[in-house]
């Protein structure tokens, strides 16, 4: 017996493998059968990949038998969001448009995690083309929150957060454009990390809004996310926006000087992040801030004055980029094609009308509108200028403090169907996560307790560009202190 995945971390799996308590193949078989049995409760996986997983596991076992280091993620079961392409393994983007799409190549992050010995168990559900905050916009049905099955897991990486919370994977890859890793992590009570823009290659991540898209890890412990990030980060010549900046050994840095490492660190509390919070969420955040203060942090009140404009700014820029990126789904090269006769132009229109769900169409329409003649300057150019102001807010705040902390979402997980008819309310709830994407700074959610109803709340931590180490130190200290 290897025990349920919820009790395992990267380190415990590695120790079990090296001590021959179990083989990677045995562990993977058990993980697959557990995932198969549990998945109907949540619909978190869209596709399980037993053949690929077992082949990867055998490769790990062979390396161990040959005395070769099996890699940073040896034998670790991982769920991959279904907007990240996997060669030979169906990748749907949770859209009817790509219901049968079998990619001919792997995303760089996928190649790297498999090279590190990671086991891809399957592909996880999400909002269609990562557009949404609840995973209700999936063409293959919503995912339910494992913590409270009548509630959403958040989105758009809801399936990735759910498999980690449910214990049907140890780690997951998600993607974040406006909060799509951190918000579901907070709703499901797991850790979710949005690295610095450019830290992880976007090659093979289906493009939504290219200047805002990130791939990042989800896990139960901060250390496991740090390890997964280390495995997938770094320059990739297939993505010209991937950074040359060297990738640190984050976990070793966490192990160095563990006592008193936060002494004298300045953490900023942005006042704009505490307006309009539910009182329970606010209380939990302030309790987490107390923990950090006791660990030696100095708390400083700061301002991010353009925060109230971030949602409007984001929904112009993200939809403009999306309208361009989603133009490629035209029924010619790799999507379903609507049946019926007509000219090429008719075929494009009917294919796109049948293939895209309501939220995708809304965003394509909005993006096309703000880019169209006569509106470009008023909307798109204006939003790009406001984006510069949001980024400047962070630059100025980081002159005063080492990190910024606040809530992830104004409220915990809501009930399925509760917000479906109010897209604007759904957009506005992204207020605390969107600014980090606009500025390209690293940010994450770490669980900081539950409400009276037992719903998880996440503490958000932001750091300077490429200073994930600082962010992990604060999150790891918090997670260990709060657990003890």
């Amino acid at each position, binding site marked *: 017996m290897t025990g349920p995945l919820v009790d395992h971390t990267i380190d415990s799996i590695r120790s079990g493998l090296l001590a021959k308590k179990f083989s990677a193949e045995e562990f993977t078989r058990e993980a697959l059968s557990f995932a198969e049995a549990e998945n109907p409760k949540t619909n978190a996986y869209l596709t399980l990949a037993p053949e690929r997983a077992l082949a990867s596991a055998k490769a790990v076992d062979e390396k161990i038998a040959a005395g070769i280091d099996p890699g940073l993620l040896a034998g670790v079961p991982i769920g991959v969001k279904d907007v990240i392409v996997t060669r030979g393994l169906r990748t749907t983007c949770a859209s009817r448009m790509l219901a049968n799409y079998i990619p001919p190549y792997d995303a760089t992050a996928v190649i790297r995690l498999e090279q590190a010995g990671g086991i891809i168990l399957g592909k996880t559900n999400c909002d269609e083309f990562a557009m949404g905050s609840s995973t209700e916009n999936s063409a293959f049905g919503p995912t339910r929150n494992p913590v409270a099955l009548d509630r959403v897991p958040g989105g758009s990486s809801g399936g990735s957060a759910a498999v980690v919370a449910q214990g049907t994977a140890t780690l997951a890859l998600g993607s974040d454009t406006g909060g799509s890793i951190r918000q579901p992590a907070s709703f499901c009570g797991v850790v979710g990390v949005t690295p610095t823009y450019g830290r992880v290659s976007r090659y093979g991540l289906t493009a939504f809004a290219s200047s805002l898209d990130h791939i990042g890890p989800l896990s139960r412990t901060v250390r496991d996310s740090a390890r997964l990030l280390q495995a997938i980060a770094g320059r990739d010549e297939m993505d010209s926006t991937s950074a040359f900046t060297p990738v640190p050994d984050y976990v070793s840095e966490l192990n160095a000087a563990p006592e008193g490492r936060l002494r004298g660190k300045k953490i900023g509390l942005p006042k704009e992040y505490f307006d309009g919070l539910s009182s329970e969420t606010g209380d939990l955040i302030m309790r987490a801030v107390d923990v950090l203060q006791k660990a030696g942090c100095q708390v400083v009140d700061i301002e991010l004055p353009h925060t109230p404009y971030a949602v409007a700014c984001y929904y112009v820029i993200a939809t403009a980029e999306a309208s361009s990126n989603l133009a490629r789904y035209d029924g010619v090269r790799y999507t379903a094609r609507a049946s019926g006769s007509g000219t090429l132009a008719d075929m494009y229109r009917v294919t796109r009308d049948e293939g895209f769900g309501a939220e995708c169409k809304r965003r394509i329409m*909005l993006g096309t509108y703000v880019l169209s003649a006569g509106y470009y300057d008023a909307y798109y150019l204006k939003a790009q*200028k406001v984006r510069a102001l949001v980024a400047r807010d962070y630059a100025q705040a980081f002159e005063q403090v080492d990190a910024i902390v606040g809530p992830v979402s104004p409220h915990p997980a809501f009930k399925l169907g509760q917000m479906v008819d109010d897209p604007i309310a759904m957009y506005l709830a992204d207020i605390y996560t969107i600014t980090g994407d606009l500025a390209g700074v690293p940010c994450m959610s770490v669980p900081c307790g539950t409400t009276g109803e037992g719903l998880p709340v996440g503490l958000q931590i932001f750091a300077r560009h490429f200073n994930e180490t600082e962010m992990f130190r604060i999150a790891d200290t918090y997670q260990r202190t709060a657990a003890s």
Partner: protein
Amino acid sequence: MITEQEIRRVAELANLALTDHEVAKMALDLSGILTNVDKLNELDTTGVEPMAQVFVHAENPAGETATLREDRERPPLGNRDALANAPLAGSGYFKVPKVIERA
């Protein structure tokens, strides 16, 4: 307020064939969202450079830029793989409906 006529024009630009019901709903939704977006006009952005991207480390220590690399041959995807997901293909090509109707 965006009119249904404007919605139809934008749908044409976006290659979307919306039903009458979708057009009416879209006019309402987009009008609501753009009313929120108008909030951006409260900010004076005179002299602010528009920010198209946030990528901050575009050079490595050796001065190599992120966007230019050595131009060298590498194996391409290949015709068979490229066509494998096509709804309709033949003779090594993607097949599409008629582009122009003959009179």
